[in-house]
């Protein structure tokens, strides 16, 4: 390596290799664009290294350990021992396999990979700053840039992620030992997914949430089965309380909270996990030098072609705003690459599916009944409970339901909400139905395999039409 400045040129410079950036780069490579992908930390970004993948791996493993110890009802008697370091090691192996795959796929599609932090020099130039002293920086001239710098956890005043007992989700997913007790600040999806993991591994979990319910933003009846199961796992909830500070006490810590009236409560624990949300990363790349604007929340506003206010600079993924989801980042990445290649692509999706991998899972897509009304539709709703599903009963997991929201006059599907087993997978069919402009009749008339959970989707559609077989029609 030469110390000093080297200068190269590229059609497309992609900054950040999360599920937004690496997908954009691969797609650009497939479209024969000359593309450079810069990453300052780890290929795969938050999602593969510290987020989606590690959390889902730990959910699988903790579920198995828990279920095996609680299946007396099925005549199974076991008392599983968990070696946390080995479990985390297994998770790391999964992550390595996937991030290694990303690197290989990027190269195979002709993507130039660069390690370092990119910062804009001007509208058409960026410096790549290598970490570790002594290494010089490179300058890359680009025709187009795609900003995919992602997001980071929001820090609560008084809770510094640098302090040992204060964990962000990334640190919580890399512990050597199962903590005896844990306070989790925030009952959003990340907090609730991790609350389940630790409770199932035997940790004494307390969840503190400023708002008044678990999974704020989700409809009450979707959140209810999740709260019920969490309570069965002895998770303790405190709503309407904000975490204010912590201090060491004995061989653990005390976390202090305050409610609206200023009443202070204290919770003892070994560690505290703060999961109150994520904020866009826009301070790593000198956006101003390129003239790219951000909004009051720090996100980069974009249009339906994923373009920022600067026409040849795109922004995708978490940094481009809500919903902050990996699959939205990837979709935006694909579209950005295709738009740059001159294809007639756009962000024209009708509905974004989302999943929460709690126990039970939640899957949603499109509009709720209330949203459909607001949009001027005349919604009709069909519902099917999993306790009437043969397949659900045979899996031992029959809490929850499938709900479909449609426009009554036309029959068009508008949205769906699922809470229950495999909700994250079942929502896929409904996502396709909505994108296709399918009607209730289309879904109801489609043969679904017996015995499967997907039959509940068909029956919910039939229920909306007034003729479900396995549940009573109102």
């Amino acid at each position: 390596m030469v110390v000093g400045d080297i200068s190269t040129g590229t059609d497309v410079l992609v900054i950040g290799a999360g599920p937004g950036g690496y997908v954009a780069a691969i797609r650009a490579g497939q479209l024969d664009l000359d593309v450079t992908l810069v990453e300052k930390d780890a290929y795969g970004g938050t999602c593969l290294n510290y987020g989606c993948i590690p959390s889902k791996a730990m959910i699988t493993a903790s579920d198995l350990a828990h279920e095996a110890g609680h299946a007396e009802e099925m005549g199974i008697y076991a008392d599983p021992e968990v070696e946390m370091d080995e479990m985390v090691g297994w998770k790391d192996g999964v992550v390595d396999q996937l991030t290694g795959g990303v690197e290989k796929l990027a190269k195979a599609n002709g993507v130039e990979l660069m390690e370092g932090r990119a910062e804009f020099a001007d509208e058409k130039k960026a410096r790549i700053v290598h970490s570790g002293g002594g290494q010089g920086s490179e300058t890359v001239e680009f025709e187009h840039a795609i900003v995919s710098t992602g997001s980071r956890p929001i820090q609560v005043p008084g809770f510094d992620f640098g302090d040992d007992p204060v964990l962000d989700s990334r640190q919580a997913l890399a512990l050597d030992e199962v903590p005896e007790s844990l306070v989790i600040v925030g009952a959003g999806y990340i907090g609730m997914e991790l609350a389940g993991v630790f409770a199932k591994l035997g940790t004494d979990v307390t969840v503190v949430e400023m708002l008044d319910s678990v999974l704020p933003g989700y409809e009450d009846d979707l959140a209810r089965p999740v709260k019920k199961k969490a309570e069965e796992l002895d998770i303790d909830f405190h709503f309407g309380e904000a975490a204010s500070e912590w201090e060491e006490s004995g061989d653990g810590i005390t976390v202090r909270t305050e409610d609206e009236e200023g009443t202070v409560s204290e919770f003892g624990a070994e560690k505290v996990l703060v999961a109150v949300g994520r904020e866009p990363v826009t301070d790593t790349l000198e956006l101003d030098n390129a003239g790219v604007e951000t909004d009051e929340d720090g996100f980069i506003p974009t249009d339906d072609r994923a373009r920022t206010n600067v026409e040849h600079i795109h922004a995708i993924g978490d940094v481009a705003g809500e919903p902050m989801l990996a699959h939205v980042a990837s979709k935006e990445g694909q579209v950005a690459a295709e738009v740059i290649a001159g294809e007639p692509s756009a962000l024209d999706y009708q509905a974004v599916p989302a999943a929460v991998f709690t126990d039970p899972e939640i899957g949603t897509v499109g509009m709720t009944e209330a949203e459909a009304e607001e949009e001027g539709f005349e919604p009709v709703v069909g519902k099917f409970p999993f306790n009437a599903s043969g397949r659900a009963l045979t899996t031992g997991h029959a809490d929850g339901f499938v709900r479909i929201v449609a426009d009554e006059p036309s029959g068009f599907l508008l949205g769906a909400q699922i809470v229950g087993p495999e909700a994250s997978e079942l929502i896929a069919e409904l996502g396709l139905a909505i994108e296709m402009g399918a009607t209730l009749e289309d879904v109801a008339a489609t043969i679904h395999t017996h015995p499967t959970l997907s039959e509940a989707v068909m029956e919910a559609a039939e229920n909306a039409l007034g003729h479900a077989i396995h549940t009573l029609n109102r």
Partner: protein
Amino acid sequence: AEEVSTGEGRVFAAPSARRLARELGVDIASVEGSGPSGRVTERDVRQTAESAGTDDASGE
């Protein structure tokens, strides 16, 4: 074709029909749908493009 914005609100048409509309420079919201409940098909999009006399309306 000129760039058409995807606009606001639900569109009842398959992704392939929506993409075709952009390709042909047709605003899908203005297309009369012939499918069930007025779903817009690829054929509807092509017909709209032809009757509007868009240059590459016959394009595949």
